[in-house]
């Protein structure tokens, strides 16, 4: 799809860095206050074509002689010409239970194939230059009128740009254990003429506040569920435990895949091996979260979605991998989503640039999250009007 085809979905508004405040208490409902978003970054650019495999498309097998997933190993999906990568068995179970889905061909026109720029576009929700400092969910947090100062956590080693908030309403927690035993000075004793000391004390109090939340989360029942014993699995468990043990944190971000250790989704090399590990970890982590939150009674109020830098090229490379491409696949999960496979089979032979042509603008999905799930003014936050993608049941 080119930019002209996209125009019917998007009427651009001037980008608003700090959108107008919106009433967080939606019309007569209290349950919506507890609605949460768990955003998972699949770091490196996920190849959706080997996750949801078009096994009746000869073009796929011809272009991937070494890394195509054999049809007889796929997890079949009723009535579809596509099957799931066998490493996604846990995810398939969730789909069958009506708790998970996939949105195909998600991207944007003239997609960037640079990791840095593509992540910037997905995270800020715009391809404008210069890109805003804030992320799309960071702006949502900035605009919230709820009294809670911290509305979201990024669990991982680096701040997520999608959560970058002008009003510091999100936090990065890299090592929950370092939050233990944080001391704060008795306010009565903190008379000081040193300005920087006062600043540090403020930070201490802020940390103390959310350290308490993490301490409370330790009493959660996450340990009873089969989260993977990995950084991602541990982050998912923290998310589950925080949701279970308190009600105010609304948005969570974590990352699967690392450029430093283990595998990333940037599968230029040995893609099959990387996917087996990553998809297995993803499915297991998501499945554990689903069971955990169902038990805790919060699954209906939880929406999980993934994003990645880009999709990958249709043809394999010479290293058992794939190169940077265009549109990709979004995984969604939750107690209120429209489960199943969304969108049409990618037209591989009709690819204009070697990658998958985008048919769904990712901003439509984000708009649905803001407008339909969080009851927030999506156009102001996204800086444009996009028709919400029907991802909810």
């Amino acid at each position, binding site marked *: 799809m080119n930019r002209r085809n996209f125009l019917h979905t998007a009427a651009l508004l001037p980008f608003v860095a700090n959108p107008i405040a919106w009433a967080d208490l939606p019309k007569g409902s209290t349950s919506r206050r507890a609605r949460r978003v768990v955003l998972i970054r699949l770091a490196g650019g996920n190849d959706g074509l080997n996750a949801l495999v078009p096994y009746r498309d000869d073009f796929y097998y011809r272009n991937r002689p070494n890394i195509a997933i054999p049809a007889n190993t796929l997890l079949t999906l009723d009535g579809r010409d596509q099957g799931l990568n066998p490493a996604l068995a846990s995810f398939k179970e969730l789909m069958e239970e009506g708790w998970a889905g996939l949105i195909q061909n998600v991207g944007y026109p003239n997609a960037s194939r640079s990791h840095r720029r593509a992540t910037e576009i997905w995270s800020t929700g715009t391809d404008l230059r210069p890109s805003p400092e804030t992320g799309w969910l960071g702006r949502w947090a900035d605009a919230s009128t709820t009294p809670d100062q911290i509305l979201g956590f990024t669990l991982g*080693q680096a701040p997520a740009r999608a959560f970058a908030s002008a009003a510091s309403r999100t*936090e*990065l927690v*890299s090592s929950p254990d370092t939050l233990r035993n944080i001391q704060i000075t008795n306010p009565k004793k903190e008379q000081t003429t040193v300005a*920087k000391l006062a600043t*540090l004390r403020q*930070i201490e109090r802020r940390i103390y506040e959310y350290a308490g939340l993490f301490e409370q989360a330790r009493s959660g029942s996450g340990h009873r569920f089969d989260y993977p014993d990995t950084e991602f699995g541990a982050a998912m468990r923290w998310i589950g435990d925080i949701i279970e043990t308190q009600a105010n944190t609304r948005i969570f971000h974590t990352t699967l895949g690392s450029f430093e250790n283990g595998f990333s989704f940037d599968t230029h090399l040995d893609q099959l091996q990387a996917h087996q590990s990553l998809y297995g970890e993803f499915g297991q982590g998501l499945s554990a979260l689903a069971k955990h939150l169902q038990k805790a009674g919060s699954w209906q109020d939880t929406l999980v979605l993934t994003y990645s830098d880009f999709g990958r090229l249709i043809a394999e490379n010479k290293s058992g991998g794939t190169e940077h491409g265009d549109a990709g696949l979004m995984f969604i999960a939750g107690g209120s989503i429209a489960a199943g496979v969304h969108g049409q089979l990618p037209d591989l032979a009709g690819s204009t640039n070697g990658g998958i042509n985008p048919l769904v603008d990712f901003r439509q999905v984000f708009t649905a999250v803001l407008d339909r799930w969080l009851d927030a003014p999506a156009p102001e936050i996204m800086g444009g009007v996009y028709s919400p993608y029907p991802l909810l049941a």
Partner: protein
Amino acid sequence: MAKPQKLTDPEHSKHLLRRLTFSATNKLFHHVENASVLAATRSLIDLSGTATTLPTPAFAEQPWTNPALRFKNMSAAVLAQKDQLARQRYKEEASQLEQEWLDQLVTSSTPLRESMSLFFHTTFGGSYKTIGPGKAVYAHIELVRRYALSTIPKLLEAMALSPAMLIQHGYDESRRELPPYYAAEKVLAQWLVGPGNYSNSDVENLARSLTGWVLEAPPGATVPDNLDSKGARRNRRTGLMPIFHSEYFDNGEKTLFGHTGNFNAPQAIKKIATLPQCASWYADLLTDYFGIHDPNGAASQSLIDAYLRSQGDIPTLIETLTSCKEFWSESSRWNLIKSPVHLVVGACQALGITSVQGLDLESWLQACGQSLLDSPNRGAQSWTSSAWLKPSGRLTARYKLGDILLAQPVSWGMRANKTGDLGRPNFPAWVHRLPVGEETHQVVADLVHTLDPAPGLNVENILDTVNQRPTAPDVSANVIRQVLASAEYQLA
């Protein structure tokens, strides 16, 4: 605190040392006490003349052979494997270098040179992940250390041909047909005049000046003749010596900030380094690095004047800085959030730790946001003093410094520490060497005094907690943990 004539008040001496070095050690304190501010500053500068080089690691002694060369007919899979092995090797080299450099910072008898080296390293930025060979990273650190107290134009001129910088900024093998605009903008923004203080024409002209240099094997060295000329530069680089290729160089006139000439890379950079715009940029960077509260810009202006008068002489700039009344003002005192490196080096020096080998400082520095050899792409923009607490959760990692120095396990990452009760801690030898007094109160007070936190830390509160563990190493360890995990200790 008004600017003193002489350092007769111990607090004045300590303030000077906390800013120009990493800590006010006894030795340095006695070195500067009772001297005039200028004499004390000069004595620290003079001391820096005795600096030694970093120990040369084995990988830096030998000529570098590219482990990821691409030969003709080499399969992509083999090349990818070579790339992966090379990355692993460079990571190990960087890790070794980081430890060596930290040891040097901790034990150096020339702390001002080390501090200024850190300042310039921070300003230029650079990551071993981009640069690659540890030999180039080592040479870069040594280059910065060597020129850290010369003049800024000379330092920048040398930087222009630092192999690490050619690779970092991507102007190795740049040709006149495609001048390295991105590199030129980075160099202008980080090294020379600061972000946005240049025109598109300056970027274009500097990019043309940066053309012509290629990192390759020294003349006469044997180079394989079956190299594949295609592919990434990292797979074609035969050596780390910058060789000028006139056929790649844009040999026309270039105009930089209104000055015209046929500049090459070192000449162009040196030229800009003599201009008021560069003086202004370094005045801003230095006032920030040394934590000077300069609301009216008077200190900055003094630095700009001194820069232009002395042609960027770094000792003159330091003397100017310490002679400003803003350096000594009440609002500048304890106004500096120490960088993570400043924190750890100062703590080691105060506690008599002479080597950081074996301590997990790599993880700690990473958690604090200052991996020494993986500085942000935006260089000075991201590593200004205000960056250390963004996001604010970084403070929690900083507060773990005590545990790291005491060689106690710290659980980094999302997985909770499941080890439970660790039993009696096994402290490193230096803890047992700390003085033991008759009175616990005195031991605690002495240790707090040694660590030198900002005023406000309550010794009585610390005593309340240490009394539950009265034996000597436990008392010391507990005090160290508490002081290092205090807001007061974050400041200089």
